[in-house]
């Protein structure tokens, strides 16, 4: 009597092992089959804002806004914010306007750059001088061409 009970036990232990094996394999295969859904959901590559010529047009800002030394304002390329201003010495400069602390857009107030969200402050070279911002703003090369402001990534040599 007992050996039929025992081999029942062995049998369903074997059965459970087989179920674990085939179930596990099933999930593995299902993972492979669901790969397209993963690729479909994963975020799509964001197009490079500087495009193929390596420069981008600054929107909502014209050269006239930053002719006077100490003047300037917020603009954008694509959906990246930038600030463009002319220093008191008359040099045209541009930075990404996303504050390195929590991502609010900073503002140019004539002598320094201020972030209203948590009171972070940067100097005119973009270095974070006070408040929570951990790192300086990234500088961009800016030049004006037939009435339009252009921004381009800064290559290593031309640090401000």
């Amino acid at each position, binding site marked *: 009597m007992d050996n039929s009970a025992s081999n029942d036990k062995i049998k369903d232990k074997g*059965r459970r092992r*087989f*179920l674990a*094996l*085939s*179930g596990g*394999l*099933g999930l593995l*295969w*299902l993972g*492979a*089959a669901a*790969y*397209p859904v993963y*690729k479909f959901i994963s975020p*799509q*590559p964001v197009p490079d804002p500087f495009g193929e010529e390596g420069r981008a047009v600054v929107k909502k800002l014209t050269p006239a806004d930053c002719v006077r030394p100490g003047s300037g304002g917020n603009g954008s390329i694509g959906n990246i914010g930038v600030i463009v201003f002319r220093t008191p010495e008359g040099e045209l400069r541009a930075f990404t306007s996303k504050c390195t602390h929590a991502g609010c857009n900073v503002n140019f107030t004539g002598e320094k750059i201020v972030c209203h969200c948590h009171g972070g402050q940067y100097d005119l070279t973009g270095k974070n001088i006070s408040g929570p911002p951990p790192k300086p703003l990234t500088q961009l090369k800016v*030049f*004006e*061409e*037939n009435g339009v402001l252009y921004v381009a990534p800064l290559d290593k040599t031309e640090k401000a």
Partner: protein
Amino acid sequence: MNYPVWDLAFLGSGLVVAIIATIHIFISHFAIGGGIFLWVAEWWSGREPDGAKIREWLHKYATFFLIYTTVFGAMTGVGIWFAIQLASAEGTSLLIHQFVFVWASEWVLFLGELTVLYLYYYGWKTNSPRLQLWLAGLYALISWGSLFAINGILTFMLTPGDWNTQNLDIAAGFFNPGFWPSLFIRTLVMILLGGLGGMVIASRIENEELKEKTIRFCVKFVIPAAILTPFFAVWYWTVLPASASKLIEGGVVGVGGGRMEAITAYFLTAVVAGAMIVLASTVVYLKPKALTMMTAIAIFLIGMTGITGAEFVREMARKPFVIHGVLYSNSLWKNKAADPDYLAQPYLEKAKWHPSEMPSSLERGEWLFRLQCISCHTRDGYRAMKKRTASWSGNFGVKWFERMHEQGVMPPFEGSLEDRAALTEYLLSLHGKKENAADILKAVEAELNAEKTKMILQEAGRVPDAIPPEIPDNPEAVKDVPADENGMDVQKDNKEVLQ
């Protein structure tokens, strides 16, 4: 042009091969898998206490197996041979002359396979169990042997390896790079199908306890394929020629740029089918009593969708060749296509099969279409040209034929400029557009001349390509643009020319 081309409306001779081949694969893979299943089941029934009852069920399995495989399997196998003769006579002739003795040996195996199956089936009551086990084993072995033989020829077509028309090295051609992975994948799929076939018959067993035991035995046949197929698939992937894997990869990686490649979709069909089978077998294993015949057939058919997907991938990866790198699908030899002035000669004048009197440009276009394009395309059916040339203009057609092989899925066009115009005229006539080949040629020449003059102008005066509205005199911009390598300041030079 060496052989006539079968101008089959709507279907196209290529699809006839595909249909017959797919049916044959469904049956032959089950035939060999079922052979292995019979052998193991014979051995298993010998060891089980209620072996007699199992053998009774096994006899029902053998009856279904005998009729299903011999009536349909063998006939469609011969059917493929008939169909490829009509789809690509040049390719078939090359394979037959190269592998005549492989096919002859495969025939001996086929004869043996059939006879052993008859001895096993018709001697069912009179043979001793040991002899039956021997016969079942022999059947499985011989039928697998016929796979071994035909697999060499089949994989040779996609991956000829270091075989070429000079060295005619049969061993290298037969044991080509694609041979072993494809052999293992097919064997695994066969074992899988043997099990699934077993389940179809087992689902009709009345006695619950015997049914449960038999179905659990059948499900175990799914496991080897479930574990090993991915590994061999990867191995097969590495062996594919660059252009073939580019087509498949082009689908996945390049998707960002274009719509999903058909090959990727079929590749996915095979993967999804694999997943569905493993899950379905797990469900069946949980509750074997619940298995009805309809469910078992459904699982068997999942296997078929997977096989269809995999076979389409293998066939499409070989585009545009019949034998990769040797013979194009429209029977143009690759080494001949390499020399451009052979290609540029007027086509009908060197073709063996041509109209019996001087054709008009439209008829010439139709003959070109029939002799070069019909082996893969049709006018209005499968891979219809009507759909593909809906938005064509005369100029585009002529220029397209020059570049169509650069994509990597089409053979180069064979024929002179007039031939190209004639074919364009014919394709446009499919849409009722009446554009005479001569006018198309004039338009093309006019366009070519316009381009040439622009090129000359550019060369002489170095006028920038598109003349911009006005030259920006932004000092800063000038500063940045680097001087030309040979020291000449490019920007300055343009100004002088324009003053």
